[in-house]
């Protein structure tokens, strides 16, 4: 369903149907973000609900220059990070020397499958999974991720490399 500025205007007027249309347009994509970030369906629904309440109540703060999708996504991601902080997930600073080398999975020997990659990401520690999700799936830059997590850009990058290496190892085990 195409989301128009008209929906935002109607929501601002308190139109119940417009709120539902907005939810219908974004709920699936935003739920998937929550699911990837929390790793649990029930927690993902709770986080999604809290995020949408904030979206609905703050639509008047959305400026005409900002993208509605990016704005909603950022609210959802922030709620996910808040959930992780409550779970005492820490994003520790690491030295750049600890960063693994960039590697590529050799397709001929270890063919990746969607289910193997999904399972591998699911098995990552929360911190690694968060950084990997934000970079690959949500397409934020290392600098943006560093800002969100309160760590340095080099740490964000290192954490991502480690996460990716861990996924590679797990996929290798699953596809052998």
């Amino acid at each position, binding site marked *: 369903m195409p989301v128009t500025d008209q929906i935002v205007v109607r929501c601002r007027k308190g139109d*119940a149907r417009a709120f539902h249309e907005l*939810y219908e347009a974004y709920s699936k994509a935003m739920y998937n973000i929550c699911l990837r970030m929390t790793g649990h369906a029930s927690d993902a629904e709770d986080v999604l609900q809290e995020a*949408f309440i904030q979206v*609905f109540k703050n639509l008047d703060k959305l400026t005409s220059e900002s993208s509605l999708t990016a704005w909603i996504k950022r609210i959802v991601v922030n709620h996910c990070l808040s959930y992780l902080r409550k779970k005492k997930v820490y994003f520790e600073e690491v030295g750049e020397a600890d960063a693994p080398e960039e590697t*590529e999975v050799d397709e001929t020997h270890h063919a*990746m499958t969607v289910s193997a990659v999904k399972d591998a990401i699911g098995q990552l520690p929360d911190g690694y999974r968060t950084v990997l999700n934000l970079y690959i799936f949500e397409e934020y830059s290392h600098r943006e991720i560093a800002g969100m997590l309160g760590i340095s850009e080099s740490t964000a990058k290192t954490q991502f490399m480690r996460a990716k290496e861990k996924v590679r190892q797990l996929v290798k085990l699953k596809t052998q």
Partner: protein
Amino acid sequence: MKLEDFIKQHRDSFEEEGPGPGVWARLEKELPVRQKTSVVRMMAKHWWKAAILVALIANAGLLVKYANTKQDVAVVIPEMEEMELYYTSKIEQKLDELKTIPADQLGLDSTTMAELELRNETYQLLEKELVNNPGNERIRSAMVRYYQMKLDLLDRILSEQEKHTNSPSTKKDVL
């Protein structure tokens, strides 16, 4: 192949179904929706409007009683007719203002609105009594009280509406 390239190529396969219906059901209860005010809710909220209307009708009933008691009036007020003219024109002006407010926002039903009208059944009844008793100043002064009461009621309804219109919750740019 790099992991990020593989994921981007198969992006759709990584997506799960959307959330369950329970999420929207819970969200719906917290929507910052501006509810359409029903007549019943408005009347319940502004019970005094109804109460004053009752007073108007009761007062009109008293006038009819006056008309039937042929008592001499102790004091004659020469400005009475002028006052009557003043009030009727003011009431007409207020009624015109009232008619610019949408009915659903006003929250007054047609019966109540009819009672507010200047030349309604009650008014016509009083006029008839006055014609039958032209010298009865007591009826005239009672009728002016009736006008005063009606004007006061219209003023209160209009100022209430103005407050409602200017409150932050009703401004277009605020949820």
